[in-house]
């Protein structure tokens, strides 16, 4: 399969529960001691109904709040993300995989108790040469939506394979 043919392919989908304990522990792990992330009283005083989540939380949310019993059908048909397949193939010739860029776009506020549905896809793949090495860029997008189907957070990020 030509690399270009992967553009638009789904990388995964899931339902995520924004669990308060996991959010509080995540905030602590990024050194964020703002009490809004673990103290309901502080969260309410800041204008939230429940503790909000730190800005980078959704990146880890698949690990933190996925319950097996309410997951949607796997859009990859059990194959897993095609990104993994591409990277495995490239790594056969050596090199390393790097996280190049990461962006979050916040459409609505997100707080503990919310349930999100995410869908990921590959939006671009391209290669360029740098210092005599081939760099392959895979650009992906994850959209996290609420029960009404409205986007809450969009993540846009790339992974780079740097040839050996």
């Amino acid at each position, binding site marked *: 399969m030509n690399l270009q043919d992967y553009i638009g392919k789904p990388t995964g989908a899931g339902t995520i529960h924004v669990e308060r304990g*996991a959010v509080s*522990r*995540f905030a*602590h*792990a*990024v*050194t*964020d001691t*703002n009490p*809004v*992330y673990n103290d309901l009283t502080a969260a309410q005083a*800041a*204008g*939230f*109904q429940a503790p*909000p989540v*730190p*800005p*980078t939380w959704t*990146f*880890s949310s*698949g*690990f*933190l709040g996925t319950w097996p019993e309410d997951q949607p059908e796997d859009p990859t048909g059990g194959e897993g993300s095609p990104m993994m397949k591409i990277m495995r193939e490239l790594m056969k010739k050596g090199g390393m995989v*790097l*996280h*190049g*860029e*990461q*962006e*979050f*776009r*916040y459409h*609505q*506020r997100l*707080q503990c108790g919310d349930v999100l549905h995410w869908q990921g896809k590959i939006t671009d793949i391209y290669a360029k040469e740098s210092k005599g090495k081939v760099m392959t860029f895979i650009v992906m997008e994850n959209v996290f939506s609420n029960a009404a189907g409205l986007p809450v957070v969009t993540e*846009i990020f790339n992974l780079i394979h740097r040839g050996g």
Partner: protein
Amino acid sequence: MTNSIPTLQYSTISAGDEAPVVSHLLTRTDLVKYAGASGDFNPMHTDEVAAKEAALPSVFGHGMFSMGLLARAVTDWAGAGNLKVYGVRFTKQTWPGETLSTRIVVSGKEETAEGKIIIAEVTLMNQNGEVKLSGTTRVLAA
């Protein structure tokens, strides 16, 4: 709908203003804590033996830990829940023993359909000024 209160005052902010700096000495314990709390168990971040076998000088920091640390400086300044965009490019790895410091500099502001927006350039660097990640954020102001 929650309605947290923006902490920045649009009228008094101008280009060149800087947010308070957050500095943090990176330790191996930080990497273990972040691995546990995020689910990123790549041994290059937590297993010194495996990292050295891979010809690295030691374990190195998760890029997303750095991004989270820098995000904390943004929300300390602009208030939790007030970010509209936050994006970075990862330029260098971080290593235990480095002191990481944030730099957030206002580059502009604009009134948009989604509210009054402050735009800032964001950077995380070590004690020698080596840039680890850099990017942009757009935050809501009152």
